[in-house]
């Protein structure tokens, strides 16, 4: 089986971006961060206000589980939103435009189109920056959705139907807790991703980068469709567990 490039696999994860860098096994980090996250959830509901404040301190180690660069991108995007900071935009462009181009190339876009659309994606980031909410998603996730929609629009010439968040019943919305843990959750999600077995990662990678239905992905990997689906199910259960959701 061909190993797709850019595989999310490392024996160790570097922690911290400054002078001190700690190398730690992602599996171990996953367990630790899940425990910290759980402690935070319990403490934040404690009836004593002083202890509830302690819960906020625990967010710091959780933040450390995301690469320093990624955290920096969130802050830069907020700066673009608040004061149309062009230097911040240039830094976001330097980081994201080549990744969006790589994403479009992987999905089969011709090189010139990928180049144009990558610039278009960053222009969209500038236009929509005021809608970015760092509590809900990271800059990378937000840009992924922009690039994804741009590709469907420009290359497939289709629309992407989306539910309207303002159209939902209030009682059906997720509670504030879920929104807070979403932000810290991205770090834990990335760690959990590194602990998945290679066969599950391969299926996930093809799901994002192959633009094929899962029946064709199964053909490409030479395994039955049922196996593809069960690998996805197992992977999702592991990721949800890492986020502290019900498996």
């Amino acid at each position, binding site marked *: 089986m061909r190993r797709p490039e850019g595989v999310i696999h490392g024996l160790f994860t570097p922690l911290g971006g400054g002078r001190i860098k700690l190398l730690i096994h992602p599996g171990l980090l996953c367990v630790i961060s899940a425990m910290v996250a759980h402690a935070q959830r319990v403490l934040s509901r404690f009836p004593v206000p002083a202890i509830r404040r302690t819960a906020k301190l625990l967010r710091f180690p959780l933040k450390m589980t995301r690469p320093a660069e990624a955290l920096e991108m969130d802050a830069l995007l907020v700066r673009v939103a608040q004061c149309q900071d062009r230097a911040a935009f240039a830094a976001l462009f330097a980081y994201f435009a080549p990744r969006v181009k790589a994403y479009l190339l992987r999905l089969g876009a011709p090189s010139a189109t990928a180049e144009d659309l990558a610039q278009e994606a960053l222009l969209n980031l500038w236009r929509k920056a005021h809608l970015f909410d760092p509590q809900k998603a990271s800059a990378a996730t937000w840009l992924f959705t922009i690039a994804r929609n741009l590709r469907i629009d420009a290359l497939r010439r289709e629309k992407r139907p989306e*539910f309207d968040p303002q159209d939902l019943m209030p009682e059906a919305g997720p509670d504030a807790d879920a929104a807070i843990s979403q932000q810290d959750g991205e770090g834990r999600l990335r760690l959990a991703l590194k602990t998945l077995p290679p066969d599950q990662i391969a299926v996930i990678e093809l799901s994002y980068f192959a633009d094929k239905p899962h029946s064709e992905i199964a053909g490409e990997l030479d395994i039955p469709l049922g196996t593809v689906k069960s690998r996805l199910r197992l992977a999702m259960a592991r990721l949800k567990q890492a986020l502290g959701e019900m498996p």
Partner: protein
Amino acid sequence: MSASHDIHHHPDEALLLAYAAGTADEATSLVVATHMHFCVLCRMQGRTLESLGGAMLDELTPAPLAGDALQNTLARLDQVTPYERPRRAASRDGTPAVLRTYLGGDLRDVRWRRMGPRLSFVELFRRRDVTVRLLRGVPGADSGAHSHAGAELTLVLKGGYTDVTGNYGPGDFQIADAGLVHNTVADPGEDCINLSVTHGALRFEKLLQKIAGPFFGF
């Protein structure tokens, strides 16, 4: 049209992932997005899968752009206008906004096409071999036993129905694989209205439907 009862049947991981990754076709995306209107669990899972997409994007080996790409883009910043969310007219009967775009209005304004005394339908759009329809049955109406050339995705919008695999109410999502032969019967109470996506033609078991089906585009 609130999800007053619990939702028991959801799209599987593969469908949610294809929707989040943007590889699902428009018809499949529409029925998954409309399910998400009803289902908080699938909305949360959808967000998780988008975060996963963000992580995948982060991990890609960057493909450098031309040397003047940044300068060109910076020069265009002044020409773009800030994005504004499109304003949509409010629904008068709780029809999900994502579906209204395709109906051109509310569910209660749909001009149904009759197919016998108890069933009616309206075709929303067709892409290659994929057809998206609304189906409506009065209580007790049955679709007639049929199987499918490809998978059939069904989302209940109002009322409910029952087949060999179980009972489906508002917000419930059924994935009927090509092999399944089923006869769906509308539950008592209000009319059952479903959003249905079929891949390829239906295969009816009854002779009358075999003959009549193609006339209605089934």
